[in-house]
């Protein structure tokens, strides 16, 4: 295995593009090292992006958009007051990934690129409308977060492409988001179901909403019908029932060691309701 420490994303991309064997990018390493240890993946080239300048930065741009470097660890996000105030749902999703120790290393982009449908940070990012910038042999492109996962362990990134940063839109007025997941214990599990809700209110009425489910299909699911159930409502019981039904209906889960199809469908609806209430309270508190 060759270990590379490129100084720019363009170099990182070039190394990956030229590589003939298995290539992995290394940021937090909390997935790559586990896969190496379990003999699932033994890269021929491991490209450590942490020597690239700016990868540890969290910056709020002039337009109030947040730019987060590719190697910013979960613990660094959680400690960032401004980011937590704007996007609490995104940050609580990331904060649920692994233990305190894992939080010391794991990154948003790593969680995204690992391609797990159960990745805790991804529904929140997608609900927030986050985008990533992808550096590749053909230059740089902006991609919506929900367009990156392609199925368990797979992404839409082409050979030689690497994500250099993530961008959260300006929070704006009356916004609130939340992420909840279900696990059998209280910590240290992979989500059996995850649900992120991001919404905006005017007065008590929801004007915009995005609902995204995790761990109930090969990729995260952006549930349009669930958003429709919320928009225009004051999160009354009728809206909550419709929301839960839409969330459950959007699930295309499997039976596996972590849960059953029926359980995932049921709990997706429950979590959607609960997350919507938190997001709604946050949005009204923030107005």
């Amino acid at each position: 295995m060759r270990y590379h420490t490129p100084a720019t994303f363009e170099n990182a991309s070039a190394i990956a593009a030229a590589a003939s064997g298995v290539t992995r990018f290394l940021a937090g390493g909390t997935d790559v090292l586990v896969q190496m240890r379990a003999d699932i993946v033994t890269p021929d080239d491991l490209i450590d992006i942490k020597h690239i300048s700016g990868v540890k930065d969290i910056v709020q741009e002039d337009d109030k958009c947040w730019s987060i470097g590719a190697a910013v660890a979960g613990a660094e996000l959680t400690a960032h007051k401004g980011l937590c105030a704007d996007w609490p749902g995104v940050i609580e999703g990331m904060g649920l990934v692994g233990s305190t120790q894992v939080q010391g290393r794991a990154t948003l982009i790593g969680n995204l690129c690992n391609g797990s449908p159960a990745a805790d940070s991804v529904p929140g990012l997608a609900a927030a409308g986050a985008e990533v910038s992808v550096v590749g042999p053909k230059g740089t492109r902006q991609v919506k977060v929900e367009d990156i996962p392609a199925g368990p362990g797979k992404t839409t990134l082409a050979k030689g492409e690497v994500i250099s940063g993530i961008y959260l839109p300006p929070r704006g007025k009356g916004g609130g988001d939340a992420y909840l997941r279900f696990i059998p214990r209280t910590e240290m599990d992979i989500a059996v179901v995850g649900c992120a809700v991001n919404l905006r209110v005017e007065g008590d009425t929801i004007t915009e909403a995005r609902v995204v489910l995790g761990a109930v299909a090969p990729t995260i699911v952006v549930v349009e019908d669930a958003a429709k159930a919320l928009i225009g409502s004051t999160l009354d019981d009728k809206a909550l029932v419709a929301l839960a039904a839409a969330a459950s209906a959007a699930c295309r889960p499997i039976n596996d060691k972590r849960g059953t199809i029926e359980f995932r469908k049921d709990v997706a609806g429950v979590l959607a309701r609960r997350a919507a209430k938190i997001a709604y309270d946050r949005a009204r508190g923030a107005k």
Partner: protein
Amino acid sequence: MPLDTKTTGFKYIGTRPDRPDGIDKVTGKARYGADAYAPGMLHGVMVRSPHAHARIKKIDATKALALKGVKAVVTRADFPTGLEGEDWNIQENCMAGEVALYDGHAVAAVAATSLLLAREAAKLIEVEYEVLPHVTDVDEAMKPGAPAIRAGAADYSVPEGLHPNVMRYIEYGHGDLEAGFAAADLVMENTYKTEATHQGYIEPHACLAQLGSDGKGEMWVCTQGHWFIRRMSAAVLGIDVANLRVTPSEIGGGFGGKTTVFIEPVALALSRKAGKPVKMVMTRSEVLRATGPTSSSSIDVKMGMKKDGTMTAAKVTMRMQGGAFPMAPIDSALDCAFSCYNIPAVHHEGYDVLANRPKQAAYRAPGSPMAAFATESLVDEMCRALGLDPLKTRLKNASREGTKASFGPTFPRIGLVETLEAAIAHPHYAAPLGTNQGRGVASGYWMNWGGETSVSAALGEDGSVTVSVGTPDIGGSRASMALMAAEALGIPYENVRVNVVDTGSLGVNEPTHGSRATYATGLATIEAVKQISSKLCQRAADKWGIPAEAVIWEDGCAKPSGPNAGEFPPLTIGELAAEMGSTGGPISGHFEATPSGHGGSFGTHIVDVEVDPETGHTSVLRYTVVQDAGKAIHPAYVEGQFQGGAAQGIGWALNEEYIYGADGRLQNTVFLDYRIPVASDLPMIDTVIVEVPNPGHPYGVRGVGETGITPPLPAVANAVHAAAGVRLRSLPMSPPRILAAIKAKG
């Protein structure tokens, strides 16, 4: 064995001094299994079967051996043939012969100059398999048509007509069962199932082995019992036990799982072949796939009860798979099934069944948690049906001194009644509960064990004492031994040093298992140091010119036994020790026995849970353990055993399980999916130490290590029923199962 029993007026017993190995263990200095290195050491890695059941057609190590730095490959061909009985089972389990019997079964091993190289070489060993049909569920394994895992291996006890996977059959009981059921106002019968769980010790198995072509060897190993490791390794390799010296490392948890061999004989075989020391350390996945989890079980229980709660008759049928080898713990499971109760008529039946799973090993009170889950769940269901208080009903039927035990003999002095009374009186039992919350109770029993024990004690020239024991210290036992030695000699705790010594330094010792260390090693320690004090009395008597019978040992001094013995100032242990070279030579004591007065330990637990009715998630809100310790030598470590047992039982009840796929492969081979309780899953665990002295120990000790894992399984199930109104009869009570039950109830 006449014992000078003392149960009150202790000076050291019952105090909580710092453990002697504390500083080593909080500074990282303590050396565990994987912390040993030897000059020229190689690293060994196992090749394991990916199939649940497969004939091994060919093993080709050519490519592996061609790698520079690869020094040896071993297969079953490198082990002797002709072993019988359990020796053969152990050999077969350590290295598959003709057939791989479970996912993870070792089929070859390689040693190389680095771990990375050994891992690479292991991947290059080519094994050709013919996949065979497999079965992993105990009930399926007994059905006609299930693949026979080892035909013709059943023992004398199995009646004709049963599936060849049934290895042993047990049946016993007493009283008139039919009359008993007829006399009952309510008879209930249900089937309960428990899935296999793992001991989950945090330290994977590790050893550093050296074996010469002359059959002389040494081994450093994390184990609960190094004499067991010596005997089993020697048997598997066909060498003499005396030629193998085994030194125990500090041990990072065992709970029964480190009482047998897995990698040790293989590391020795690699070392013999390569001519160099070989270190082997399991990965976590290897630990889960290929060490010794518990049996899974399927249990039918029937009980008769009168309206006032009197139990009239009970019957249990237990089916357990212990992997692809016999000896699932049906015996102890059956013995524990009704041991808490005085029931006039009981009947027990048990089936020990093979399945394509790893060979089960002991896990904390082997068999008892499964039995308790069935019986204590049923008792709770019957109390509900009859509107009875579950603790008072247990008290009404509780076994006590003089009760004919369900397994036959008459109980000596036991403490179940005292634990029930303490539980009833505990504020926890009367505390208010909120919405979706419920309380469960259950009792449990473990018979404990004495076992082969040797202890030496030697007096130092300054009056301090070294005690050599053979039971590895897993949970503070050095402190307990030092307290008992200090008490017996009347010298300060700090003046006793307890060492866990190697197999070359002491007679045979069974492992730290069966809740026996504080009982048996403690008893032997007391008797060994008493030999020192009686020798010191002799020396004092010689000095004073009076008979030895006229000298007593008190507060660390030899004293004349009364005015008639003469007036002499006491001689301290230090004074006598300083002169021992010139008064008759070195002084030591030694005691060896297989003590059998261990006495059983009963416990009663109370648990409050909250069940989320929308997700089936269970939170444990409050937990109280009440257990009889006989006499708590070091109460902090007794509490620790209670709390640890309860935590493991909670894990078993709620989330831990072996999950096999349709392909017979274990699906959850890492801690991420083998879900043991984490710190945020549990509340503080309150403890009440009941002390009903055990007449079989000089200070009244009963083993406490195992009983604590037994009541949580049914106690949590009973609490879930109280909270959510649903009865779960299969473990684990994972959220999908609880939610499905809630929805089915409507």
